[in-house]
C-alpha cells in the first residue's frame, strides 16, 4: 500500500499493515493526545482500542481509535486535546493546579455571583473534551435487521471455535468482530468491522459499523470478546512510554521498534510473548520484573527482579525511569524509554453483564474467565479517559460518595470512551477496600453502549423518513402543489397563491383533501354507553343523521383532541379526530371500552376512508351537479349526516367544516378518492373552483376562531381555558367529569383568547405577549385576514389569581387587544346557509 498520511503539517509515511498509531509511532510521535482535564501527555498505551490515549481526528471525524484503525494514503490526522498544540500545550499548567481543581469542583465553585458560572462553564468546556464535532451535516447511516440461530461476538480463537462448532451443527451462524476477521470460517456469515454495542431482551444485539446499525435477532448469543490487559495503577502510569504488552507487540508486528531500552513487568504467561516481541525487535531489556512463580520462565541472560514492586514511572515528556522496590526493600530507578506492563487480563464482559437474566447469552474464552488478581490501587491514574486518580476517589469517598455507583457519578470514573474497560474493576476494588457495603462495592451497572459509537450511526433507524399519504397524494403532486409535512402526513400547503385559494373558499367554492382526519366506527350493544362515558359531549339527544362537535378530555380533564361525533342510529357512531390525534383517539376509546367492560367494537377507518371537503358559498350548487340525492338546506342542514352518492361514489357526507362556509365533508372509500376529486374539480371549473391547502386553511379557521389542538393548546388545557365549556355536558358522568368538578372550583389563571393586532401576520406566531415588560402569554396563531382586513390571532394569556385578565397587550412591538371570537361571521349564518 504505502503512501503518506498528513499529521498536521507533517507527512507521515505509511507502510503495509500500518495502523494510524503504528505509522505515527514509527515517525517518532510519542505524545498522542492530552488528557481530558489536566492536559497530561498521553502516549500509545493499550494498542487494542480500549483506552482513550490514541484517539485522533481523522478527516474531520473525532474520536477515531488510531491503534486499531488502518492507515491509508492521504488521511488527514489531527491529534486531540491541547492548545495551541498537543506537543506544546499551554493548558498543561492545569496539571499543577490539582489542589484548585479537585474532583467535582464545578459543583461547588463559580456559584456566586451567578453570572460567573456562564463564563466558567464556557471556559471549562473549551479546555476539555475529546476532539471537535464535525461542522455541517453528517452522514446518515443505514439500519437493517439480521436473523440467525447463533451470533458469535468476537473473532478471536474462542469466537471462531464457537462459530465453527455452531455452523457444523447446521445452525445459521453469524460471527462479528469490531476489527478484521482473519481466515473467515466456512459456513459462517462474517461481519468484520461490526462492533457489538449492546445486548437487549430477545435477545437482540446491536452492531455498529461505518455503514450503519445492524440489529441482530439470534436464537442465542456467544460472547467471545476476550480480555483487556490489566491497567496497573501507580504514579506516572500515564506517561508516554508506559504501555501495555499488547501495544508493544502490535508495534513490533508492524515493524516498529517500540523503544531502545525497556523495563518489562510480567505477571502472567502472555507477558513472555510480549517480552519476546521486544527482544526480536532489538529492544534492549534493562530488567524483567516477575513474581517468584514465573522466575523460571524468564529467558537466560536477562536481569531479573523477582518480587519487585513498581513504585512509579518518572519522566517529563516521556518515561525515563521505572522506579521499583526490590524484594530486599531497595528502591531502584532503572533507565528506560519503554516501561512495558503485562500484568494480567481483565475479561471484556460488559456485553455479558448487560444481558438480562435468563437470556440465552453465554460467554466463552477469556470473556468468561476470571479476572487476574490485582491489588487495590493506592496512587496513580485510575481512569485514563476522565483523568481520575486514586486521590480523586479518596476525596469523593470522604465527601460521602460511598458506593461504586456514587463514586462513578461524582467523579465520572468509568464514564469515558473505555466505559470502564480499563478502570471498572479498580473502582470496585477501591470501594470494597474502603468498606463499602457488599451491594455497593461491585462493578457499576453495564449498559449500552459498550463501544464508542457515532451518533449518526445510533440515529440510523430514525433517519428513515416514514410518510403517510392520502389516496390523492399523486393528484396533488401533479397539480404542482407545495407538499410538506403536517405531523406524519405529507399534505399540500398550497397549489399556487394561498390568497386565491382562500378567496375561492370565501367567495366561490373550493375543495380540500381532509383524508388525513382520524375516522372511527364505534358499534356494538354498548357503543352509546362507551361514547357517553368517554367524552363530555351530550349523546342522548343526538338523533341519527346528526353530528355534534366532540371534545376529547383525558381523565385529568385536559383536552387532548377534538372532532365530530356522528350518529348512525342502529349502526353505531362515526367519529372524526384531528389528523395528528387519530392514534391517541383510538387508544382512548379502546382503553375506556376495556376498563369499563363495554361491549363495543372500535374500528379505525382512518386508512380505509378518504375525505374531501367541498366548501364555499357555491358548494351546494357544485354538489348538486354531481348527485341526485337531496342536499338542500332543509333536507341536509348544518351538522347533518347523510349517505350521498357523488359522481357515482358512495359517500358518508357531513355538513360541517372548519372554514365557516357551507361545507360538506365527503367521506368515501379510499380507492375511489381520485375519481371523486377529479369529478368535483371538473364540475367546479365553471364555478371558479380552486383547491386549497393548509396555508389557506390556517387563515380560514382562524377567522372562525377555531383552535388547533396541539398548536393553540397546551397539554394542561381544560375546556374552561379554551373557552369550550359549552362543549361539556354537565348533566352526566363521564371519564373526566370528576376532574372537571375539581378543576372547576378554581378560576383558570390562563386562557386562550382571540387577539387583534395593529399590524402583522403569521410572523407573530410564537411571539410573547407582554403587559409592560412582563410576559403574560404567547401568540399561538396569527394571520392577516383578507376579508376583515385586520391582523388577527389566538394566544394564551395569564393573570395573577386576584387580577382580571389583561386586555391590552403587546406582541413584540405590535399592539394587541383581546377580542371576542369568531372574528368572521360570528352568528354562523354563512356556514348554515
Amino acid at each position, binding site marked *: 500500500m504505502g503512501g503518506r498520511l498528513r499529521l498536521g503539517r507533517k507527512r507521515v509515511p505509511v507502510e503495509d499493515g500500518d495502523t494510524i498509531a503504528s505509522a505515527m509511532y514509527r515517525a517518532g510521535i510519542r505524545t498522542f493526545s492530552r488528557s481530558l482535564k489536566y492536559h497530561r501527555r498521553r502516549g500509545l498505551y493499550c494498542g487494542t482500542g480500549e483506552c482513550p490515549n490514541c484517539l485522533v481526528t481523522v478527516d474531520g471525524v473525532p474520536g477515531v481509535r488510531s491503534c486499531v484503525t488502518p492507515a491509508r494514503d492521504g488521511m488527514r490526522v489531527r491529534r486531540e486535546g491541547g492548545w495551541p498544540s498537543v506537543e506544546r500545550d499551554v493548558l498543561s499548567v492545569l496539571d499543577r493546579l490539582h489542589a484548585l481543581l479537585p474532583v467535582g469542583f464545578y459543583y461547588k465553585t463559580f456559584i456566586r455571583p451567578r453570572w460567573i458560572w456562564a463564563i466558567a462553564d464556557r471556559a471549562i468546556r473549551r479546555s476539555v473534551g475529546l476532539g471537535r464535532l464535525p461542522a455541517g451535516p453528517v452522514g446518515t447511516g443505514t439500519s437493517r435487521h439480521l436473523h440467525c440461530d447463533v451470533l458469535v461476538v468476537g473473532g478471536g480463537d474462542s469466537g471462531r471455535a464457537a462459530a465453527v462448532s455452531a455452523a457444523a451443527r447446521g445452525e445459521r451462524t453469524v460471527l462479528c468482530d469490531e476489527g478484521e476477521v482473519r481466515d473467515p470460517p466456512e459456513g459462517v456469515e462474517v461481519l468484520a468491522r461490526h462492533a457489538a454495542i449492546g445486548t437487549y431482551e430477545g435477545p437482540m444485539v446491536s452492531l455498529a459499523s461505518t455503514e450503519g446499525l445492524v440489529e441482530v435477532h439470534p436464537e442465542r448469543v456467544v460472547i467471545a470478546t476476550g480480555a483487556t490487559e490489566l491497567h496497573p495503577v501507580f504514579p506516572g502510569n500515564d506517561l508516554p512510554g508506559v504501555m501495555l504488552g499488547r501495544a508493544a507487540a502490535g508495534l513490533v508486528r508492524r515493524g516498529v521498534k517500540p523503544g531502545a531500552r525497556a523495563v518489562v513487568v510480567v505477571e502472567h504467561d502472555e507477558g513472555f510473548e510480549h517480552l519476546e516481541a521486544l527482544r526480536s525487535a532489538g529492544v534492549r531489556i534493562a530488567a524483567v520484573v516477575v513474581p517468584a512463580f514465573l522466575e523460571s520462565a524468564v529467558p537466560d541472560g536477562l536481569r531479573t527482579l523477582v518480587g519487585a514492586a513498581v513504585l512509579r514511572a518518572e519522566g517529563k515528556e516521556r518515561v525515563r525511569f521505572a522506579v521499583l522496590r526490590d524484594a530486599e526493600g531497595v528502591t531502584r530507578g532503572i533507565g528506560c524509554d519503554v516501561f512495558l506492563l503485562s500484568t494480567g487480563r481483565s475479561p471484556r464482559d460488559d456485553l455479558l453483564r448487560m444481558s438480562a437474566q435468563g437470556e440465552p447469552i453465554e460467554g466463552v474464552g477469556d470473556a468468561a474467565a476470571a479476572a487476574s488478581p490485582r491489588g487495590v490501587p493506592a496512587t496513580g491514574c485510575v481512569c485514563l479517559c476522565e483523568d481520575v486518580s486514586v486521590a480523586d476517589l479518596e476525596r469523593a469517598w470522604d465527601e460521602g460518595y460511598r458506593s461504586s455507583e456514587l463514586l462513578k457519578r461524582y467523579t465520572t470514573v468509568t464514564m469515558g470512551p473505555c466505559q470502564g474497560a480499563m478502570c471498572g474493576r479498580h473502582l470496585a476494588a477501591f470501594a470494597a477496600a474502603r468498606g463499602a457495603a457488599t451491594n455497593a462495592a461491585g462493578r457499576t451497572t453495564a449498559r449500552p453502549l459498550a463501544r464508542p459509537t457515532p451518533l449518526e450511526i445510533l440515529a440510523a433507524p430514525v433517519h428513515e423518513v416514514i410518510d403517510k399519504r392520502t389516496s390523492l397524494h399523486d393528484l396533488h403532486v401533479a397539480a404542482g402543489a407545495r407538499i410538506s409535512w403536517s405531523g406524519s402526513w405529507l399534505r399540500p400547503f398550497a397549489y399556487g397563491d394561498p390568497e386565491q385559494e382562500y378567496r375561492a373558499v370565501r367567495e366561490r367554492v373550493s375543495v380540500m383533501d381532509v383524508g388525513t382526519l382520524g375516522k372511527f366506527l364505534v358499534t356494538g350493544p354498548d357503543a352509546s354507553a362507551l361514547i357517553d362515558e368517554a367524552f363530555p359531549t351530550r349523546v342522548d339527544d343526538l338523533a341519527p343523521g346528526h353530528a355534534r362537535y366532540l371534545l376529547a378530555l383525558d381523565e385529568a380533564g385536559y383536552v387532548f383532541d377534538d372532532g365530530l361525533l356522528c350518529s348512525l342510529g342502529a349502526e353505531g357512531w362515526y367519529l372524526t379526530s384531528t389528523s395528528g390525534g387519530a392514534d391517541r383517539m383510538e387508544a382512548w376509546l379502546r382503553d375506556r371500552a376495556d376498563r369499563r367492560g363495554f361491549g363495543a367494537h372500535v*374500528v379505525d377507518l382512518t386508512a380505509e376512508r378518504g375525505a374531501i371537503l367541498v366548501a364555499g358559498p357555491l358548494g351546494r350548487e357544485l354538489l348538486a351537479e354531481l348527485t341526485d340525492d337531496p342536499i338542500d338546506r332543509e333536507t341536509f342542514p348544518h351538522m347533518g349526516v347523510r349517505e350521498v352518492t357523488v359522481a357515482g361514489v358512495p359517500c358518508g357526507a357531513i355538513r360541517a367544516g372548519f372554514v365557516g362556509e357551507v361545507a360538506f365533508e365527503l367521506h368515501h*372509500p379510499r380507492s375511489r378518492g381520485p375519481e371523486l376529486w377529479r369529478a368535483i374539480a371538473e364540475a367546479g371549473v365553471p364555478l371558479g373552483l380552486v383547491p386549497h391547502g393548509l396555508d389557506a386553511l390556517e387563515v380560514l379557521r382562524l377567522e372562525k376562531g377555531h383552535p388547533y389542538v396541539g398548536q393553540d393548546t397546551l397539554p394542561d388545557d381544560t375546556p374552561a381555558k379554551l373557552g369550550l365549556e359549552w362543549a361539556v355536558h354537565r348533566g352526566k358522568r363521564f371519564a373526566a367529569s370528576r376532574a372537571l368538578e375539581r378543576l372547576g372550583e378554581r378560576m383558570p389563571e390562563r386562557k386562550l383568547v382571540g387577539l387583534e393586532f395593529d399590524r402583522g401576520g403569521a410572523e407573530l406566531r410564537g411571539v410573547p405577549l407582554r403587559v409592560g415588560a412582563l410576559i403574560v402569554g404567547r401568540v399561538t396563531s396569527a394571520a392577516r385576514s383578507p376579508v376583515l382586513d385586520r391582523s388577527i390571532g389566538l394566544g394564551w394569556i395569564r393573570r395573577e389569581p386576584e387580577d382580571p385578565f389583561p386586555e391590552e397587550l403587546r406582541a413584540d412591538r405590535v399592539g394587541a387587544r383581546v377580542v371576542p371570537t369568531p372574528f368572521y361571521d360570528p352568528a354562523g349564518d354563512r356556514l348554515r346557509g
Partner: protein
Amino acid sequence: MAELWSVHASEEACDLAMRAPEAGRVAPDEVMVRAPIAEDLRRAVHTVDPESLIREAGEGWAEVALDGSDARDVFARVSALRLPDGPGYVQGDVARVAARVFVGDEAIRVLVPAYWESHLRRRLHAEPGA
C-alpha cells in the same frame, strides 16, 4: 389484493373465525382473514357472538407480496419479526411501521394501512434482492 375481512367478536367467536383460511389473530377480539369467509363460518361466529362484526376491510390496507428465493432474506432485513417456517401469520414492525404479515407457500404478504403503502414499497425496493 385478495379479499380482506375483519372479524370483531368475542374471544370465543374469534377462535372460531381462526378456522377460516389465511386467518390471522390480530387481538383476542379481532381476526383478519385474507380470503372469503364461508357463509357457514359466518353463521357460526354470529351464533357464538350475536354482536360480532364481520366487515370487508380491503380498502384500508395495502399489500406488498415478497416472493422468490430471496423473499425471506429481504423481509428479515427490514423486520425483527421471526417468520413461521410454513404458512402462518405474524404482526408487528416491518420497515418501522405496523404491519400484518401472512406467510404463504409462495409468498410473504405484508399488509400495512394504505397510507403507508408508498413507504413500504420504497423501503422494500431499496433492499438488495427485492
